[in-house]
């Protein structure tokens, strides 16, 4: 019983009893509802057996998942088997695997110029290059930043906020800001000329364009991955570090033998998420470089978008086939991550 101050005790007693009454009636209603459900569920359990009941509980979630994932996937697959430029599937002629055959018509998959749909394969090559560079940079910089932010440094909260801030910005805003910095008369070239250097046309040179695409992506999203790693670092028991300190273990050895192995599950998450983001990348690079120069930063998703929407003949079939290929690649990557995590655990 709670001790109440004088003066309100007289009112508090009936309030408490009212609360108790409410609780009792609530429990009665809930009990009635549960009994109502219990009977049909019990019947169902007797019919299908206890082990299959798990599927019944999963059904509502599965229904939503099907509606928003499997149904669009099925529609996409259906489109990829059709041709023409009509929007409605019922008006599109069935062409079988023609779109896939067209997409995969290549002299050599390592030479996009030998492919009929060279833009798609240039997109594949660029996306792979982008993903590798982005993944390595993202993991490295996120890890280093997380390690630094986990140390007892001055202004730690401020720096954590600073690193996380770009994550809150829209990718289009991020790309536009960097475009203004990097263009011919942008901030960076102004700085370069001020110190006596020459202007660099960053978006005309394929190497620079890819470099800045990766840089901007890492700058914009690093905070999110840093946060995941920081959470992992803080979950490592402090007594392990204390024991290492007592043994006078060198710091690099602590990092390699304690920190990294215990951070591995978080690192796996970061690697997989960064990889998927890399393969799916579109908005930032599209706004920043427009896929150029030439097709040096044209990514698969931009190819899909332009094939479906930017051409006069809106080739939904070919775009759908390309997106199915992209989906399969992402599925395989996720599968590899799952098996890796399972074997590790």
């Amino acid at each position, binding site marked *: 019983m709670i001790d109440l101050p004088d003066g309100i005790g007289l009112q508090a007693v009936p309030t408490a009893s009212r609360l108790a009454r409410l609780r009792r009636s609530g429990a009665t209603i809930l009990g009635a509802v549960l009994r109502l459900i219990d009977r049909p569920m019990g019947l169902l359990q007797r019919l299908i057996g206890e082990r299959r009941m798990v599927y019944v509980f999963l059904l509502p979630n599965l229904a939503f998942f099907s509606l928003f994932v499997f149904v669009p996937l099925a529609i996409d697959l259906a489109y990829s088997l059709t*041709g*023409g*430029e*009509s*929007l*409605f599937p019922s008006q599109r*002629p069935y*062409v079988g695997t023609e779109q896939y055959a067209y997409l995969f018509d290549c002299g050599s998959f390592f030479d996009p*110029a030998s492919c*009929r749909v*060279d*833009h798609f394969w240039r997109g594949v090559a660029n996306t792979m290059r982008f993903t590798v560079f982005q993944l390595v940079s993202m993991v490295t910089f996120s890890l280093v930043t997380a390690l630094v932010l986990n140390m007892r440094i001055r202004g730690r909260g401020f720096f954590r906020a600073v690193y996380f801030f770009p994550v809150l910005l829209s990718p289009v805003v991020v790309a536009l800001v960097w475009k203004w910095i990097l263009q*011919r008369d942008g901030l960076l070239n102004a700085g370069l000329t001020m110190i006596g250097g020459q202007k660099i*046309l960053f*978006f*005309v040179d*394929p190497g620079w364009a890819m470099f800045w695409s990766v840089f901007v992506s890492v700058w914009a999203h690093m905070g999110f991955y840093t946060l995941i790693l920081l959470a992992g670092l803080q979950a490592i028991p402090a007594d392990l570090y204390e024991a290492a300190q007592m043994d006078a273990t060198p710091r690099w050895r602590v990092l390699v033998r304690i920190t990294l192995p215990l951070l591995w599950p978080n690192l796996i998450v970061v690697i997989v998420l960064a990889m998927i983001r890399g393969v799916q990348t579109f908005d930032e690079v599209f706004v920043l*470089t*427009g*896929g*150029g*120069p*030439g*097709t*040096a*930063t*044209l990514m698969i998703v*931009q190819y899909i978008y*332009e094939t479906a*929407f*930017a*051409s*006069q*003949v*809106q*080739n939904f*079939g*070919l775009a759908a086939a390309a997106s199915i290929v992209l989906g399969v690649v992402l599925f395989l990557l996720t599968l590899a991550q799952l098996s890796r995590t399972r074997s590790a655990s």
Partner: protein
Amino acid sequence: MRAVIRRAIGASLLTACLLALTASLGIGVAAAQTTLRMTWYSDGNEGEVMADLLRRFEDKHPDIHVVLDQVPFKAINENLPVQLASGQGPDIARVADMGGLARYMLDLRPYLKDAAYWEANYGPFLQWMRVPGDTSSIPGFMTQLTVTGPFVNKTLFEQAGVAMPGPKATWENWAKATKEVAAKVQAPFPIAFDRSGHRFFGMAISEGAAVFDDKGNPAVIDDGFKRAAKLIFDWHNSGVMSKELWGSVAGATYRGANEEFKNAQVVMYESGSWQISQFDKTIGAAFDWVAVPTPCGPANCSGMPGGAALVGIKSTKHPEEVARVLDYLASEDVVAEFYARSLFVPGHLGLARKGLDYKDASPVANAALKVFSDGVNQLAPAANQLQGYPASRVILNAVISRLGQAVSGEITLDDSYKRIAGDIEQQLAERNKK
């Protein structure tokens, strides 16, 4: 206490009755008024002019309300077709890809007050809005007739002490002169072409490109085309053109150099008549600029025609009201005001014959409008044929995409020719799958 409660209940009931009455009246008004949606894009001030004209229309016709949805040009080319295909489009739209969207357009004839007026004044351009085989429908009217052509920064020529080439000068003459000017005044862009198939074909047709064979089928790659492509390619390598426009983006993405021209970084800018309004307003007295006749090639001195049309959409539930709005906007007085205030070359034969009084235009803009209006008479048949071809964007996009790759050094010029032919063939084959 009871009296207070009774009064409160009475007041509430009265308020409810009044609210219900107001709502029912409101519904009555709403039911009497038809709302139409118009999708619109602007290059200059024409959106403001249209909004003003619509306000006046609504004052005269209170039973129709037109919502003007102003969208970027990119949305007109990329989002509107999907909207139209799904039957969820607006009632009226301003479109540039007239042939490509012709199948979604409403034939206004049954609803127009005087279809003969439309035929007489918009006749030649109506064919651009019709599906192949249709020779009689009236889907809308031209909000502007555009002609491609160059603008020149006269001040830079004067500062450099270089004489501007004359009216019949060739592209090569201009390339030489502008490069000399740019070198003397440190301008980064001697010549800038918008990254657009229209701009390229103005030059290509002057160089002798026929674009179509005798049967009217696309036959894009010929000697004239190759001459123009080689010029563009060589100019990018010699510094006459900067790779920042054609070489810096992928696919058929449009890139204009209007901002660079306004900042006096471009000596000669190949664009078109629709830029006059914004140059007139934004450049002001910063420097002297002029529009010059399209430079010549061995075949002719043609630019490319184009423009935009305001059309009714087939899926509208209010075709009569759509026709009333368009009848009003296309009437001679109203459309004359629209062209004059927007500084557009008229796409109305009667007004073109009479000549328009561009009251708001400066002498420079008036002179530029005269140059472009004269340019209409210089248009080669191939230019008109390409503009009227329903799949013109297939050709224009393939050319710009592949020449862009060649300019950036990704593929050779010969490879780009093969790719252009292949892309056009593939897209037309896809369109023919029924």
